């Protein structure tokens, strides 16, 4: 069976090749001269479920390991350790790479498959360094068994460190924290914080734990001491009662990916976490940008009247937000004047970090930043790479990295 592509990029389903799919992106990279400055993608993904059997080998608990391995057999139809989300990310087949990706063959060589396929799209898009995150595990925070969240994320982190990050300098990651267990969260930072390629830690935002709970303070203190940023990654959850009122995936996706980050950011600021840990750097992922000026205006306005309810604050909520970092994708580009104002209020030139979210359906190419008419060349290069190089202290020896201003 052949894909309905062009004559000159014709390929059979079993020959699906990301490089061909992204040929236009590669042309953009050439035309815009991406070889002249570093591009860092602070939020990209792989499908860890395609390497699940490798990951399960890193499970410690022998009973859980047997359960998981039995469930991963092809005939184990109803056995599943991982929770999944209801949703239609592939738009009913309109985004064909969702169905074809798992069939893609890695190029010959020593690279692990996820590494090889990730480098394939990075090369096409023009990304030098990618911060790599999982995909199905973004929902692990609502798994009904906390012990499964801990065990699976520890196995994943070990696999990622040993099989991916240890070997590939172009890939780094912020490692998953099992936030439903504060003690395990703390132990994870101690266990993985100094591993090669670990540039921070990640909280998958879709969960129901308040970030200001006292049990997390020692983790924040440790992260601050180690100089490692913490990131919150948006996602959706159709079983959430509020999102359950929405009847179409477009609505769940549009609101869900912002909703949890809005809650966490509100708790983070109003409870004065930035005052308690002033050197802890915070990064918000995959919520786009339009929510930020909304939060700034909403909370500044209320704080002026209800100051006594947030006594820890020494400046406006928006001032704390301007100290934070935000990833660009999925960047709302339907009104450039609004986008320009948004970038102004968040100090984009120093606080905004380019992210692609590739290979997910709403990925953004570097051109979404580079082609913006209101940014000068310095701002573009900072957003596309320079800010991330500084935030993550990337010292990978690349000639391009040395060109960061």
């Amino acid at each position, binding site marked *: 069976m052949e894909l309905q592509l062009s004559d000159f*990029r014709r390929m059979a389903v079993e020959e699906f090749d990301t490089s061909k799919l992204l040929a236009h992106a590669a042309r953009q990279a050439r035309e815009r001269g991406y070889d002249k400055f570093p591009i860092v993608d602070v939020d990209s993904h792989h499908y860890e479920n395609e390497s699940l059997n490798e990951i399960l080998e890193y499970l410690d608990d022998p009973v859980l390991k047997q359960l998981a391995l039995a469930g991963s057999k092809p005939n184990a139809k109803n056995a599943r350790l991982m929770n999944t989300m209801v949703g239609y990310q592939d738009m009913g087949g309109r985004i064909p790479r969702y169905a074809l990706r798992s069939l893609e063959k890695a190029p010959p060589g020593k690279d692990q498959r996820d590494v090889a396929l990730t480098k394939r799209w990075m090369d096409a898009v023009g990304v030098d360094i990618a911060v790599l995150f999982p995909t199905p595990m973004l929902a692990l925070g609502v798994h009904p068994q906390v012990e499964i969240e801990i065990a699976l994320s520890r196995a994943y982190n070990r696999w990622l460190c040993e099989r991916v990050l240890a070997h590939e300098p172009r890939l780094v990651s912020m490692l998953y924290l099992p936030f439903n267990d504060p003690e395990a969260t703390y132990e994870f930072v101690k266990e993985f914080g100094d591993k090669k390629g670990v540039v921070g830690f990640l909280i998958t935002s879709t969960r129901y734990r308040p970030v200001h709970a006292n049990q997390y303070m020692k983790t924040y203190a440790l992260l601050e001491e180690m100089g490692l940023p913490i990131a919150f990654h948006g996602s959706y959850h159709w079983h959430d009662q509020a999102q359950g009122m929405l009847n179409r995936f477009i609505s769940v996706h549009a609101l869900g990916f912002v909703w949890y980050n809005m809650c966490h950011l509100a708790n983070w600021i109003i409870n004065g976490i930035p005052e308690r840990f002033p050197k802890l750097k915070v990064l918000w992922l995959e919520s786009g940008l339009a929510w930020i000026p909304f939060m700034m205006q909403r909370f500044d306005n209320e704080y002026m009247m209800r100051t006594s309810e947030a006594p820890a604050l020494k400046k406006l909520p928006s001032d704390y937000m301007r100290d934070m970092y935000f990833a660009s994708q999925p960047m709302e580009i339907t009104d450039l004047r609004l986008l320009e104002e948004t970038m102004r209020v968040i100090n984009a030139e120093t606080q905004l970090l380019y992210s692609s979210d590739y290979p997910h359906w709403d990925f953004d190419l570097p051109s979404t930043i580079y082609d913006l008419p209101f940014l000068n060349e310095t701002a573009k290069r900072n957003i596309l790479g320079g800010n991330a190089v500084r935030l993550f202290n990337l010292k990978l020896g690349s000639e391009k990295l040395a060109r960061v201003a």
Partner: protein
Amino acid sequence: MSEIFVAKIADFAEGDRRIVTRGELEIGVFHWQGKFYAYENLCLHQGGPCCEGIIMHKVEDVLGTDKSWRGQKFSDEEAHFVCPWHGYEYDIKTGECAANRRLRLRPFDVVQRGDDLFVMAA
């Protein structure tokens, strides 16, 4: 104005498509309901190869006489090709973006000469 050969008409089946090139210019040519349509293979969103995506009929809501929602169906009239990068949908017959008709792909004239089909590239 220069011509680009697309195909022998007899070899270009109804519902099929071709992508032809001249230099870096790529043009998608569709054979749809007895006519030929040609557009630049460059999505207005982020530059994806929009003419290379799947073809699907427009999705429509079905309402009852009392305006209640009764389900959905595929249009009998309107078909879209869908950019494989992000899902932008374009009307095959007009090149208009289905979500915003003010946006339209760059069209090209298609000319039949004898048994052959050409697009006229500026």
